[in-house]
């Protein structure tokens, strides 16, 4: 469940970026406009949380919550002379985030949702107490406010520096998501490259709808650990999103260009069209928030169902 299996792929400084896959030189501005998808081969570059929010949520709609949550060094963890607090400070400086996840509310095509996205550049998107607790808070927020929950996952797994406390965050996050699920709440996850270890083995894969980005590496164990264990080379494309979909482990692979539309169609398909001034979709939640008006008894065809995917 280590996070360091994945090395940061440094982008060359300046205006041009070389595609990791086809080596095409891409104009930085164009790449960002194309949601960081290579125009030649379709490679999906990793995205920061800020880029996720920009590309996914309605403009200016994101409101962060619990931004101030910060990890503490409960174990007094030191490895190779580096103390965990120093590591945290470095990662905070590097990413501008306090930890490896950002949560809040936002809108997708006018529909308010609870939202969380993981910052892979922060210690490999590893899950410690803060990540676990913020997933719990996002689930509680979705439950209290009757909002669908969208979690964008990108993580190498649990955070070793927080020992068994980080392992327990898998249970913490799932306990909150279980409560949301039992109350009839909708949870959708999007697994980005890479999603492995403790995040895959907890909240990433228990959602009602599990989506993935093209070619994303998704698995329980990292490829190197598997190769060492079974002492053989892994098949090509093993643990890629396409492989998982073929094996029945995913609902759908969604290219970024279609993501907003797909999410809108999922929300609409399951919850009905957005009704202005009313977002609640939960029914029969005793004491959850007092909303008695839930989703309509019969689903009506949403206008966006007929809308073709946006080409870009």
């Amino acid at each position, binding site marked *: 469940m280590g996070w*360091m299996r994945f090395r940061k792929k440094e982008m060359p400084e300046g205006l041009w970026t070389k595609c990791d896959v086809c080596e095409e030189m891409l104009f930085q501005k164009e790449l960002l406009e194309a949601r960081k998808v290579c125009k030649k081969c379709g490679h999906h570059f990793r995205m920061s949380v800020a880029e996720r929010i920009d590309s996914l949520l309605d403009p200016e709609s994101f409101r962060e919550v619990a931004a101030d949550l910060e990890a503490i060094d409960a174990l007094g963890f030191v*490895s190779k002379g580096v103390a965990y607090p120093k590591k945290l400070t470095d990662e905070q400086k590097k990413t501008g985030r306090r930890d490896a996840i950002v949560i809040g509310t936002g809108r997708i095509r006018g529909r308010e949702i609870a939202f969380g996205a993981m910052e892979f550049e922060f210690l490999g998107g590893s899950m410690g107490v803060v990540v676990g607790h913020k997933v719990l808070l996002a689930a509680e927020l979705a439950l209290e406010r009757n909002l669908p929950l969208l979690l964008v996952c990108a993580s190498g797994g649990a955070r070793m520096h927080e020992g068994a*406390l980080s392992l327990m965050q898998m*249970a913490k996050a799932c306990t909150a998501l279980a409560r949301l699920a039992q109350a009839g709440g909708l949870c959708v996850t999007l697994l980005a490259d890479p999603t492995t270890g403790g995040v895959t083995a907890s909240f990433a894969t228990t959602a009602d709808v599990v989506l993935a980005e093209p070619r994303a590496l998704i*698995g329980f*164990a990292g490829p190197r650990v598997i190769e060492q264990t079974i002492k053989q080379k892994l098949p090509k494309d093993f643990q890629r999103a396409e492989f998982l979909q073929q094996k029945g482990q995913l609902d759908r692979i969604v290219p970024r260009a279609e993501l907003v539309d797909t999410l809108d169609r999922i929300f609409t398909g399951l919850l009905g069209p957005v009704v202005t001034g009313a977002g609640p979709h939960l029914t029969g939640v005793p004491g959850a928030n007092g909303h008695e008006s839930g989703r309509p008894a019969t689903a009506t065809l949403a206008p966006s169902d007929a809308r073709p995917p946006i080409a870009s």
Partner: protein
Amino acid sequence: MASAHDLKDWLDFEKPIAEIDQKITEIEKLATTAPAALKPQEVLAEVGPLKNLRDKLIRKIFSELTPWDRVRLARHPRRPHATDYIEHAFTGFLELHGDRCYGDDQAISCGLAALGPRRVLVVAHRKGKTTKERVAANFGCAHPEGYRKALLKMRLAEKFGVPIVTLIDTQGAFPGIGAEERGQAGAIAKSIQEMATLRVPVVSVVIGEGGSGGALGIGVADKLLILEHAYYSVISPEGCAAILWKDAEKKGEAAKALRLTAPDLLELGVVDGVIEEPPGGAHRDPVGMAATLRTALLSQLDALSALPVVELLERRYAKYRAIGKFRWSAATAET
């Protein structure tokens, strides 16, 4: 158990203890030969001081254990397995096989049993004793079908109001091709999430190795206990050392840094209680260990069974919600 002649199974720090044991056995044997080489009172006179010496030595050695020593004790070749506890702490174990979908993973066994006056469902990792059993059980490393079987049986127990006891002892869930193809992560995740909702008391005990997600997959509980010399960790010390120290041989340092011992986990709030082992470890007295385990389990189940279901679930939620401290950057610590 302690008197076995074979010294090869003993850990280096146990050797002085095993040597005294061996001497005691030899003397006791002299009394049973015909004609007896020693009279019973002569045996007592010789053995008594040796036993005192041994017990003092055990106390000294075991008061100085390093975290890595404890990991080795948890993996001790003589350490009792779940199958031993199922035999000695429970009665009438009736195994229920299979996930009704893909297979019957031998790395996790499930069955109905009695614990004193209580009916329970036991879900336990199985490591296997003989080479054949070990291979069949994949050395205690479960595949997705193991977690699916466990969840299926736990739902069965829930339906009939039967409390659940899980015994955790695994290096981890198996990292292999088939495991990934069949959704190892998803199976563990589902088990974790659904255990949070079980409407019956769940008590889990780490009896040996608590290897990461593979352990947690059957370990979401109202009360999590751990045996004194068991460990529970997010990653194996070797794995952690290989990643953070770039050297798997730094496993001792990693074991220390990870705070994976029973007393550490109690202090961190990961476990709810530590069950004391017989002097020198559970392997020196498996039957005695089983009796202690049974008492601990019964007292937990008595308390949990007295709670209304709503209260039980509320407390389980609150328990997991509170695990792990953090702070708001205004620097006020909060749980």
